[in-house]
């Protein structure tokens, strides 16, 4: 009896905490279908004017485009730099490895505001502030740790006997990589590149101080709008971003579950 009372109290606590997590995510949706010019909840009336305005407003569309360009550039550059590094770190033992590991993880631990201050001055003298290139170069640094962690985790789980077998059959190192290593690791490569893309797309602090007006990213525009006035575009962007996240998270869970079910059914399916 006492046990059941305690269990149900744990249940109630659990549901309250889940509601605390979920409620703020959901509240942005009705806000975007409101007609009120300010942050009024619940909205006094419903409409899709905010969406119509958003998709005709270059002050929102340009930063959105900038963010896509910058995130794409940063994720490609990060992959080019980190893929060879991950192979070196996982497959070789050498003097200075521990130190290198710390260096590769440094951008994850150092607060963004500190490096933003550095970029503000450094990129200023290099004429890289207010350019797409400047933001790409900065975001690449910030994406290095996440991509490195993802790739090295995948590499550690890679069975090297596959490569040895291919080499024994006479394949050159390059062919081994192209026909064995890369195809096996391709999903991990894609996930790592996606992490880099999202990291850049969401990054606010550095973009705030170096992207300027010409290369303003979506988070920068979002931040400015939220600080100055209650711009309804913020509610629209929030809802759209939330929709993308829900699709991606729920979609990836469904794919994983389906793959697991297929594996259980056996190789014949």
């Amino acid at each position, binding site marked *: 009896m006492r046990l059941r009372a305690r269990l149900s109290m744990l249940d109630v606590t659990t549901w309250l905490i889940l509601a*605390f997590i979920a409620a703020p995510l959901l509240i942005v949706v009705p806000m975007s279908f409101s007609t009120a010019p300010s942050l009024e909840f619940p909205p006094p009336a419903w409409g899709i004017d905010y969406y119509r305005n958003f998709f005709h407003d270059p002050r929102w569309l340009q930063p959105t485009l900038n963010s896509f360009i910058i995130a794409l550039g940063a994720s490609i550059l990060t992959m080019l730099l980190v893929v060879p590094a991950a*192979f*070196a770190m996982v497959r070789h033992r050498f003097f200075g490895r521990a130190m290198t590991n710390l260096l590769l993880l440094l951008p994850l631990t150092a607060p963004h505001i500190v490096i933003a201050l550095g970029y503000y001055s450094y990129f200023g003298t290099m004429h890289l502030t207010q350019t797409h290139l400047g933001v790409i170069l900065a975001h690449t640094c910030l994406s290095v740790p996440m991509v490195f962690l993802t790739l090295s985790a995948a590499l550690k789980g890679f069975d090297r006997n596959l490569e040895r077998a291919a080499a024994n059959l006479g394949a050159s190192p390059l062919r081994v990589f192209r026909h064995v290593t890369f195809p096996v690791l391709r999903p991990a490569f894609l996930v790592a590149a996606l992490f880099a893309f999202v990291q850049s797309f969401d990054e606010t602090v550095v973009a705030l101080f170096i992207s300027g007006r010409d290369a303003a990213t979506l988070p920068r525009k979002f931040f400015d709008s939220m600080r100055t006035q209650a711009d309804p575009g913020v509610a629209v962007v929030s809802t759209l971003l939330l929709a993308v996240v829900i699709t991606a*998270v729920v979609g990836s869970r469904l794919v994983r579950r389906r793959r697991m079910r297929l594996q259980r059914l056996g190789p014949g399916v």
Partner: protein
Amino acid sequence: MAVAWSLRGAGSRRWLPWLLLAPVLVYLAIFYIAPLGIVVVASVTDPTPSFAHYRDFFTDGFYLQVLGRTFLTALIVTLGCLLLGYPLAYAMARRDDSLVLAMLTLVALSFWTSFLVRTYAWMVILGNRGPVTAAFRLIGWDPPPEILFTRFSSTLAMVHILLPFMVMALYSVMKKIEPALLKAAQNLGASPADTFRHVFFPLSAPGVVNGCTMVFILCLGFYVTPVLLGSPREQMLAGLIGHQIEELLDFGEASTMAVVLLLSTLGLVAIYNRFVGIDKLWG
């Protein structure tokens, strides 16, 4: 052919890792270490070479107050995340049904939703025309208390934003705890409370350390949420640095604050690395 390749591989082993690492190391040196170095150098050379900024920082009551407030806020947010995260992770780890998947999905949704979107959501909830203010009016508290743009609102939002980090750190450790150990303790006569205190909790401790370290470090350098939701008169260190860049630009002074923030963060990471090992933090 294969033999020749493996022989060549053995001979090149010494320089091969450095060749593979060269691009990323050179890149980070130019585009990460150099700008970081500029901040460190500027803190003792701008406008003239001296330690005056540091002397000011550690003697002026204002800066010490900001530093203290930053650490206190990080501590409160960490405890808040632990208080909410532990029961949730515990409930998820002890369950074994499809509901766990739904809970994990919700935590993942929150995790992947931009900080800015979640900050905006709290602005709506706690704002003048939001549901919380309306609720205060409903119970006759009129005019309702000012909640938005206070330390309370930014602290609450930061707990919400950093909670997924805590839950994931705790859950990943808790789900590996062998259920047989708990059953064994109960078979030996331990009460549920004793089982929790002497078996489950000690085994979950690594998750607590990981989650708290991560949340504390992230909160220490948090810029966006305190600036947008917090009190302008009671900024945290990161907000003050941003304010310096935007309005006054005393680069030396801003750099000094940045170095203090950087060293505080790296100091904590170093302690964690010494006792646990940095690779476990994101494991």
